[in-house]
């Protein structure tokens, strides 16, 4: 591997175009509960999402491992990471989750991207007035 680094160091011009190559997709989601004051811990949130996956997509769905990269318990906002092949299943199960401990709820998906960086640079968040 060593010679490769040398070549990289020397600044020889290299260009590669990768198509559909990102292994993961990232989601910025927020859980809205009927009773605004109730709270979930990170573990409870992940388990709740897993039940949704299992109901909608069965054991295959439950086998999709996704990461809770970041979670703010006050706003119930989370950043999720999932293998690109599991994105549609995860997203559809979030959409069809309607109640948490017999309280109405809804997952609001703010942004989905194959790049975590894009989640911190969404121009639709620009508030000027």
């Amino acid at each position, binding site marked *: *591997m060593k010679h*490769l*680094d040398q070549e*990289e*160091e*020397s*600044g*020889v*011009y*290299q*260009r*590669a*175009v*990768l*198509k*559909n*190559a*990102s*292994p*993961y*997709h*990232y989601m910025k989601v927020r859980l809205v509960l009927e009773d605004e004051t109730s709270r979930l811990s*990170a*573990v409870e949130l*992940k388990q709740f999402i897993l039940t949704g996956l299992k109901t909608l997509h069965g054991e295959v769905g439950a086998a999709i*491992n996704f*990461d*809770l*990269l*970041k*979670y703010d318990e006050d706003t119930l906002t989370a*950043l999720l*990471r999932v293998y*690109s*092949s*599991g*994105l*549609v*299943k995860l997203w559809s199960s979030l959409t069809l989750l309607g109640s948490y401990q017999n309280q109405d709820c809804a997952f609001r998906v703010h*942004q*989905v*991207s*194959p*790049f*975590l*960086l*894009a*989640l*911190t*640079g*969404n*121009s*639709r968040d*620009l508030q*000027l*007035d």
Partner: protein
Amino acid sequence: MSVDLSSTPRTLLVCERSSFQEEKNRVSTQVEQLRFNYKVSLLLPECNSLPSQLESVLDSFTSFYLIKQLPVYELLDKDFLETAVYQGNVYGLSYKTRIDEDNCVALLPNGRLCLSLDKDSFEVLGFEGKPSKFNHRTKSRFVISVDLTDRRMAPGGRGYQRLLTGLKSRLQLQTDFLLSHHPGGGASLQSLLSRCDWSEHRPQMSQRGLTELSCPAVHSCDPHSLLEWLGAVDADVTCENSSSSFLSTLACPEPKTTLSRALSVSVCGLLLPQDIQRLIDQLRCYLQQPRLESWVSLTVHGFADSPVSWGENEHGFLKGGENFYTLLMFHNHTYRLHLATGAHDACPP
């Protein structure tokens, strides 16, 4: 026609490596190609306070103006053309308009006016244009791209007259509008601002100090892991997870070292490519001074709802409109450049 649940929309990532000393390097043209930038985020390893020269560059970012309910035909006003469009570089983008739903307007530095209109507005305007590249089945969106510096579009000319009448009395297109000018700034825009309800805005800067940050070998790390790590730093996501932890297995790419401290700086607003180029030049000087760590990273996010993204290529929004680039600069003048784009975009330059 069963839909494969494991497929995701198209995405492109261009990875380039070269050196600033190589005459063929195109960084400055690539930076210049992304005209409407929403956010710049900077990562300075082993640095805990922003060096003064960098701070002054960031403070000197051109301010921009928000015009409320701008009648778009005002952009064809003679004085405005003379003071803002024909001299220097004007940057204009409709604000709070969604490229996949609403009419969007962009005024490019080379004097080109881009209107991305839905079918009805396009037909009422009555000016020639072509269907959007991202139409699906029915032609529901059309793009009109006009070079205002062209003699046919000179005030009084035939094309100018028809566009002015179309915008003024037939379509009466109105939109909130972001406007900026380089190098003239507000002065060059005075002719238009004086007739509208406007407010001046400064790009918003924020800083965040980081300590004990695990950091990958940025020279040889594979592009996606590198971009993921940079995204994690920007989003303040911890990489200290074990692969067996239930909540998250995100870990810093191996082989990794630990930075005792680092500074993450971000600026938001309508940011001009010229300002970003100045920032890059300043960063390169910063890298020449002896310092502990020999690299810095700069990420620039384009506007998700701009009618154009790279150069004059049409930009669209399917389920995401991301287009950004990350420039990793090293002490020895070499760099790694990653240009990323989503489903409805041309390939970055």
